[in-house]
């Protein structure tokens, strides 16, 4: 499930690269609770194998990031984001928000896209 070699340990733990030790401890505790076997949080979303695998990945990430020396070495080993997609801002620190494009044109555009996407062979008046 994890994009090995692409996603950093910070992303595995859902923390930013500037996370403090406290942030990392907290994220680890939250993850442990979230992926407990009887937790409702992952109900129907992942199977048992995926749950165990995710928890293991988080544990491995925690081992590195919770140790200041290992973390420093790890930070040096990972290259800076190659493109925007890997940038931390796309994760927890994202401040981007979804806004509806102002004016009628925006909505028309959206629904033209929706309509166009599904209309072939169907009534043009109805949704897919």
């Amino acid at each position, binding site marked *: 499930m994890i994009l090995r070699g692409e996603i950093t340990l910070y992303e595995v733990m859902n923390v930013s690269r500037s996370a403090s030790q406290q942030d990392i401890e907290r994220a680890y505790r939250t993850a442990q*609770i979230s992926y407990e076997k009887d937790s409702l949080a992952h109900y129907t979303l*992942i199977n048992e194998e995926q749950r165990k695998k995710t928890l293991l990945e988080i544990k491995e990430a925690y081992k590195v990031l919770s140790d200041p020396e290992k973390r420093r070495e790890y930070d040096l080993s990972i290259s800076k984001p190659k493109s925007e997609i890997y940038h931390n801002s796309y994760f927890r620190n994202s401040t981007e928000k979804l806004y509806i494009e102002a004016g009628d044109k925006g909505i028309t555009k959206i629904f033209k896209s929706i309509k166009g996407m599904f209309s072939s062979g169907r009534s043009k008046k109805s949704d897919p």
Partner: protein
Amino acid sequence: MNPKQTRSNPVVSERQNRTRTIWAVGGGKGGTGKSFVTANLALCLSKKNKEVTLIDADLGGANLHTFLGMRKSDLDIGDFLTKKVPTLKDVAVPTQYNKLRLVKGSDHLLFTANLNYFKKLKLLRHIKTFDSDVIIIDIGTGSTYNSIDFFLLSNPGILVVNPEPTSIENAYYFLKSCIIRLLKLYIDHYQIQDLIKKVTEQINDNSRSVYSFLSEVISQDKYYADLLFRALKKFRPSLIINKARDEKDFVLGESISNVVQKILVINLDYLGAIPFNEVVHKSVKNLTPVMDKYPESDVGKAILSIASRLTEKKS
């Protein structure tokens, strides 16, 4: 598959001027307390001197008026959709509360199915004409295209979930439906049609996660992966846990938010939990919102805190 540089973002744009603040309250399963939360959040804001318009878009199961102590006697959204009145504003009626207007829902059989494209477009256009500080849409139950589109176009869409497996299952189904709709919209716009089949087959039938789907796209084309990733990160719904009974229920929201961020690749902001309390039952029976009769109860305080977080998010 090559119009990479020429196409503009199909769905979203950064905030430029003042845009309407539109919240949509949904969550898949019936009975989780969506209308209760909607009515009380609205009252909470109007008490803070905000102009609020409530829209009951729970087509087929409308009862938001009842939560505000009103009967179903005036004009409703159906009269607008059937052109009995020319504008949506014509069916917005004042409530007994200052600065709070309501567009009542309709249970007309015509609207229980999906609205057709033109009606939905018209409704959305008219919703944006309200000069209110906040417009709150109760989108009702289920994962129909009506619900999904209203949810995607709001900022934020708010999921009301009970700490029960059935409610969580339906909420995840609803979120996944929103994600598929969003991805398809982008994929169509950028004419990367070959991906649509994969989205439908693999995410829809639950055979793989959004995360692993995106990982495959990354390996094939990082440009498009970036686009889809951006689309998902801009979809930022919020979560309320309603009817929380014990400590586990109160922390469940944070866990759900954590899991969703990893597995569904979207940020789900946890707004807080509303405790289970008999005052809710009492207030519904008395046709009086909790925020009117019992604002000092733990339920009232929780709703006030959630309303504050939502208005902070806006600024």
